[in-house]
């Protein structure tokens, strides 16, 4: 049975929200903070596998709306994705997931690749992000497979069994070995929210890795949790090492 104070508190809250809604009807159900930095500082919540050289990284993501910081000051955004990455630096990767950055109006499905050579004299073709309308639905599960081709050396990015993009280069010549699988939520500003809320987590399930040519995709052999650097971000294994949740409570 509910206690009297709890009922009255609930009534007060309802009245408060009703009066608030009269003047601020677009009040969000989440509480993201103001933007803090005027440049992107990448922060990750998720898993990276170090079980051996990976040729395929795959997993299912339940997509969630991305909520950015308020008062855009140059760079903000968040995403969740599956990635195959090189070991040379953080710019060797191919990934697919969902994202909302800078002043985009809506969360969208994306693919992105990078050959790792973007220096101060970087040209235009070293990294590319592609946004794919019509796939992100909010609350739905999609399968992402980032796969190396033993024939071409290129990496393809597939969503729900459809290949949406492929690296224009062979990762054998562009990336440092070994290659790793990563499954992460990422944000660019501490004011941003990592995907997922306390009531609706962003889920990663069926994460898997292929370690050799012709081998089956297996559970990650050494899946290590990233450090939780951003405040109010959360990680929880649901079925280690193949399923976990992330969410934000700011």
């Amino acid at each position: 049975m509910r206690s009297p104070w709890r009922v009255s508190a609930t009534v007060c809250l309802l009245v408060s929200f009703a009066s608030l809604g009269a003047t601020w009807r677009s009040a969000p159900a989440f509480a993201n903070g103001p933007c803090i930095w005027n440049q992107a500082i990448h922060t990750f919540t998720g898993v990276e596998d170090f079980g051996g050289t990976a040729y395929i990284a795959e997993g299912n993501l339940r997509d969630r709306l991305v909520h950015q910081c308020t008062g855009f000051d140059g760079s903000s955004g968040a995403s969740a994705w599956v990635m195959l990455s090189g070991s040379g630096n953080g710019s060797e990767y191919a990934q697919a997931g969902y994202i909302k950055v800078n002043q985009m109006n809506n969360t969208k499905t994306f693919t992105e690749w990078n050959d790792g050579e973007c220096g101060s004299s970087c040209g235009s073709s070293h990294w590319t992000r592609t946004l794919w309308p019509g796939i992100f639905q909010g609350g739905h599960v999609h399968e992402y497979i980032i796969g190396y081709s033993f024939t071409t050396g290129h990496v393809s990015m597939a969503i729900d069994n459809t290949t949406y993009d492929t690296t224009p280069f062979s990762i054998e010549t562009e990336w440092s070995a070994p290659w790793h699988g990563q499954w992460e939520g990422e944000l660019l500003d501490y004011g941003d929210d990592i995907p997922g809320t306390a009531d609706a987590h962003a889920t990663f399930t069926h994460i898997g890795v292929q370690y050799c040519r012709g081998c089956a995709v297996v559970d990650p052999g050494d899946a290590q949790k990233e450090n939780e650097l951003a405040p109010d971000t959360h990680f929880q294994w649901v079925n280690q090492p193949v399923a976990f949740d992330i969410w934000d409570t700011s």
Partner: protein
Amino acid sequence: MKTSKASRPVTAFAGTVLLLGLLASCANTPPSTSLNAGADPPSAVAATPPVPQDLVKLLASDGVQVETASLADASQVEQSGISGDAATKFSVDEYGGAPEVHVFLVRVTNANAHPTDEPNALLISGALAYLVQMQGLAMEPMGGGSDPSKDDGATHSELDVFVDAMAGTELFSITVR
């Protein structure tokens, strides 16, 4: 519908009046407010659609070829075929807008994103598409978890959005430069 003999002279007269009216209207047409505002009057050479070099450069590097069908600026999109319900399916604001926007009508002639690829899922060979070039943006790569990229030199300034010219729906958008 056939016109009766009795009404033909009247129709011919009305048509002449209408033609003269149109000619007079054209003579009073104010200067264009499109991207070419302030430029010299269009000549036979200028009537040839300009080639969107950035698109050609981008897609050529990916093994995709396009033919330029015509050129329009953002204000002309609705007049060029995206209208009504279709118009609501696409908005530059979806991407946060941009300091500068150019729109080209292009026809894709090779749907392979890269020479060794399978045909791109949404880039259909032969399709007529609007290319919306949003310039003046600042987009950074996402980076991997173990050592994220922090190199400002990697920032791109342009997002190219491809829109199905018939349905008005977005096909995909891609970072450039």
